[in-house]
């Protein structure tokens, strides 16, 4: 896609954007509306890419007779302050790139004037840029006049400026309205194109202050489109020439011929879950080499039969089938690991199996206790503490069991339309006062710490209280907070660790979590 494309090649490489591209092309060729809004919830990045290339197409084309094109593409996230927006836009439009040696000076017609300090400054900047462009285009013949409104049509050469804003939902609110009527405000032929994943009705300013845009919406990429994008993004990758394995004996063409089935399998496996071509091509790129290894393995297997003859060996149909079938689970695995980025691509390659088993985090005993206790404190209702945590007689324990089971058997739908009680574990942790957690903690330790002696009944409580009040323990709370396993500030905290992790910890400490969580899973 590096070589300068034509409209046709562009449309070919972005099939799903065909209408978009042609429409824009016509617009730009003739007279664009001053405000275009493009909605693409599926592939914003690719859309922006395509549009940029289209604009390059125009701006790089020789200013033959009709018009000179200048465009600026701005990322609304990157332009987090008006000044940034102004600078980026004007510099790009004027084709000026600030260099360090002239101290990052912005573009300006006659130097020193600042266009970036306020909105109207920016408007002047646009006018200036327009003048400048006309000046250059007409070889300096065009005189500076301030009513460019009409003046343009007279002399044949016209300047067209396009302002492309991607992620426009993040655009600074006070910039939106002026941008939408930029042409009117500056009396210049400038077109604003906003690209966003959200529809205009979600992002438009209040009171209809902005005129209605010309809507263009991009649909979700079709299967063909996706495959097309995939195959362009995954060009031929030779098996690393160094390996002298069986792959070296397979002709590159036949390997090349594997790409299409490879990609289509990828799409058929992962497509239902991920529609974004970027993600698919990411997975595809990561897995390609492992795919080749798999190929090598299989072909060596059935080459054991006819080991003797040398030279090229081609990939039989059934081998291809076997290969793809064997590789399908790999795709799933990759999807589960890579798509959420649980592991980086490189790690996934080296350790071909994802190592995402929830290993119990290494903490000191106290910290483990604190985590468990705080989890209990932020999932169990306060009333239940006495029953759940304080380990009294058997009778009480039985009572608790009954209570618990009754919750589990409660019907999904509340009776007489009342809302179903949602377990706290699903609603997320609640905050708890430090003392409550300490009380729970004390009980846990009394029961599970044989090192500290809570032997005799009468002083046990007291001893537990002492242990719970130790500086070391309080420091543990601090360190846990810094590690964001607890959140909140003194004296109320909240547990930030999930159920399964706590389960692991409890297992280490020999605490039976199920008995203590009010409504266990």
């Amino acid at each position, binding site marked *: 896609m590096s070589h300068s494309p034509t409209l046709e090649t562009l449309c070919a490489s972005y099939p799903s954007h065909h209408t978009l591209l042609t*429409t824009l092309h*016509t*617009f730009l060729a*003739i*007279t664009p*509306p001053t405000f275009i809004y493009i*909605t693409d*919830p*599926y592939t914003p990045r690719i859309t922006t890419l395509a549009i940029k290339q289209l604009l390059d197409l125009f701006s790089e084309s020789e200013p033959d007779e009709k018009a000179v094109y200048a465009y600026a593409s701005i990322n609304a996230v990157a332009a987090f302050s008006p000044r940034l927006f102004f600078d980026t836009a004007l510099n790009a439009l004027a084709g000026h790139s600030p260099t360090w040696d002239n101290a990052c000076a912005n573009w300006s017609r006659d*130097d*020193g004037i600042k266009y*970036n*300090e*306020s*909105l*109207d400054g920016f408007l*002047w900047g646009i006018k200036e840029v327009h003048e400048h462009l006309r000046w250059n285009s007409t070889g300096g013949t065009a005189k500076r006049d*301030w*009513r460019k*409104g*009409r003046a343009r049509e007279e002399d044949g050469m016209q300047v067209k400026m396009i302002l492309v804003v991607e992620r426009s939902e993040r655009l600074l609110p*006070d910039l939106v309205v002026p941008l939408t009527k930029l042409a*009117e*405000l500056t*009396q210049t032929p400038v077109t604003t194109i906003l690209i966003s*994943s*959200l*529809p205009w009705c*979600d992002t438009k300013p209040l*009171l*209809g*202050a902005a*005129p*209605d845009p*010309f*809507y263009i*919406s991009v*649909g*979700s990429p079709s299967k063909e489109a996706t495959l097309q994008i995939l195959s362009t993004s995954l060009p031929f990758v030779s098996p690393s020439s160094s390996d002298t394995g069986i792959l070296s004996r397979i002709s590159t063409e036949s390997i090349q011929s594997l790409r299409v089935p490879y990609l289509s399998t990828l799409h058929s496996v992962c497509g*239902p*879950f*991920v*529609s974004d071509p970027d993600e698919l091509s990411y997975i595809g790129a990561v897995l390609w080499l492992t795919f080749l290894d798999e190929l090598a393995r299989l072909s060596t297997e059935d080459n054991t039969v006819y080991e003797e003859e040398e030279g090229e060996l081609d990939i039989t149909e059934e081998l291809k089938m076997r290969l793809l079938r064997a590789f399908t689970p790999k795709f*799933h695995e990759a*999807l*589960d*690991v890579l*798509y*959420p980025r649980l592991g980086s691509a490189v790690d996934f390659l080296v350790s071909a199996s994802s190592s*995402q088993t929830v290993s119990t985090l290494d903490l000191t005993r106290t910290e483990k206790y604190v985590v468990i206790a705080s989890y209990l404190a932020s999932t169990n209702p306060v009333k239940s503490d006495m029953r759940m945590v304080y380990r009294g007689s058997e009778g009480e324990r039985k009572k608790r069991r009954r209570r618990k089971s009754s919750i589990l058997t409660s019907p999904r*739908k*509340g009776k007489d339309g009342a*809302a*179903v009680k*949602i377990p706290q574990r*699903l*609603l*997320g*942790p609640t905050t708890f006062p430090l003392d409550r957690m300490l009380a729970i903690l004390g009980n846990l330790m009394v029961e599970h710490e044989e090192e500290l002696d809570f032997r005799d009944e009468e002083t046990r409580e007291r001893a537990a209280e002492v242990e719970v009040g130790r500086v070391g323990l309080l420091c543990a709370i601090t360190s846990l907070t810094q590690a964001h396993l607890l959140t909140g500030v003194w004296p109320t905290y909240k547990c930030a660790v*999930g159920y399964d992790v706590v389960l692991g910890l409890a297992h280490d400490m020999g605490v039976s979590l199920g008995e203590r969580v009010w409504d266990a899973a």
Partner: protein
Amino acid sequence: MLPTPVTPAQKNKTRTVEDIALPTTPVKRHSPSPARPPLAKRAKLSHLNVSPSKSPRGVLPVEFHACLNAQKRAVLAMLQRPPLQFSQIEEEHDDEEPMANEVALQQLDDLLRGTVERGEGNSCLLIGPRSSGKTRIVETVLESQSQQPIVIRLSGNVQTTDRLAMREIARQAAVQTGSSFLADSDVSDPTDEDTEVNLSLPPSSHLPALISVLPTLKRPTIIILDAFDLFALHPRQALLYCLLDTAQSCRVGDGMNGIAVIGVTTRVDTINLLEKRVKSRFSGRILRTASPRRLSEWIAMARTILTMPVSDGDTNVEWSEMWSDAVEQFLAERATENLLNDTFALTRDVAMLNRIMVGSCALHRRESTDWLIQMSTILSLTPSKPFPTLAQLKSATLEQRCPPRLPFLQSLSYPCMCLLIAAVHTRTSGHDVFTFEMLHEMFREQVRTSSAAPVQMQGGSVGMMKCSREILMAVRLYIFTFVPLPNIAKEFGKYRCMADRDDVKKVIEKQGGTNLKKWFSKAK
């Protein structure tokens, strides 16, 4: 407008060759005896065995491509600066009282003439719904002035404070008079060197001085305040006060040049926003613009635009008649009319509703929608389908009139659908607000109970769900009910589902597998 019976009639007319020679009627005054232009056309195209009346029309012969493009260019250019409405009304409704815009234009013209030629101080308000031609009227009037006045354009959206406005006034005036005045505050001083963004603004104390300078400029000054109502929101309306005061006190003939203050706004009650002292300075002149009142005018306008004569150079008689006839065909079709009628009715409702509700700028999308329709209709003209067709109009209308509210519902990945269904379930169980964990719990349960394909088991792994949740969040299928604390775990953020049950139902019907449908149907 065309009587309906004509349309079928002209279909089975037979035409004779000699009509070719006839000069094509200028498109402007149509109200045609529908016979002749089609005649010409049929004969002309006959050797191309193309019937112009029916779509899909045949391929356009090569020699006309240039013409087509030229036509497109012309029409699009026209659409950029649509005509004021009175331009084509004369023939049709002479009987009525003149169009609002005509009146407005006339009055404004007089006003400015007064200022420009006799040096009066004037002020007026130009009020009208969106895209009803306010700005265009102003521009046309400005064009038509005998002597070029100093024009200062301010917009309430840009000059958000009086001081900004002052600086802008100073700048524009300085540029147009060539003499940089208001030198006491270093506004347009190129050599000030503060790098940080805070502006070197003139102190508000300079305001009266600055404004009072305006009439003394060598040419009369015309100040256009776009979004006038916003200026009225500035503290103490100082700017408005000064401007109007100067305008009022500007007497004819005491050596001063005239000054005119034109407020442009969509807000009908703007006058009430003015404080007493300000209002007393205001001349009270209010000019109104309006949109066409009748579908016929509307269609007429569409016609004018469509049949825009091709700008000089590649005029091709055959082409233009062919084209104009095609347009006639197009506009004459009953369905077209209905479609336009729908839009007309619909948007009128919107307009009224908004006027009542918002009480300010009415979202009046009548013409704009119409032009957009035409525009995109025009756009999609290709040599293979050279003439506007109904289908194009339809699609364009759908796309432009009311774009879908949740465009991302058109196609969803499997996990998204699962979450959607789960969300619906939570709602039916009485929880409008939910966390991701709840949805996921529900999903796991479903996977467990249903004998669904193991594939979904795969897809249901938490990671999968999480990220598809991410995607949904990115496209705002869920919006936060309340902004969660920073650094709250993702899965416990509180969400609410924007898509209601029917939306989801549609999606599931369209894409969902049987399992999903079953699951969805459980949510009653």
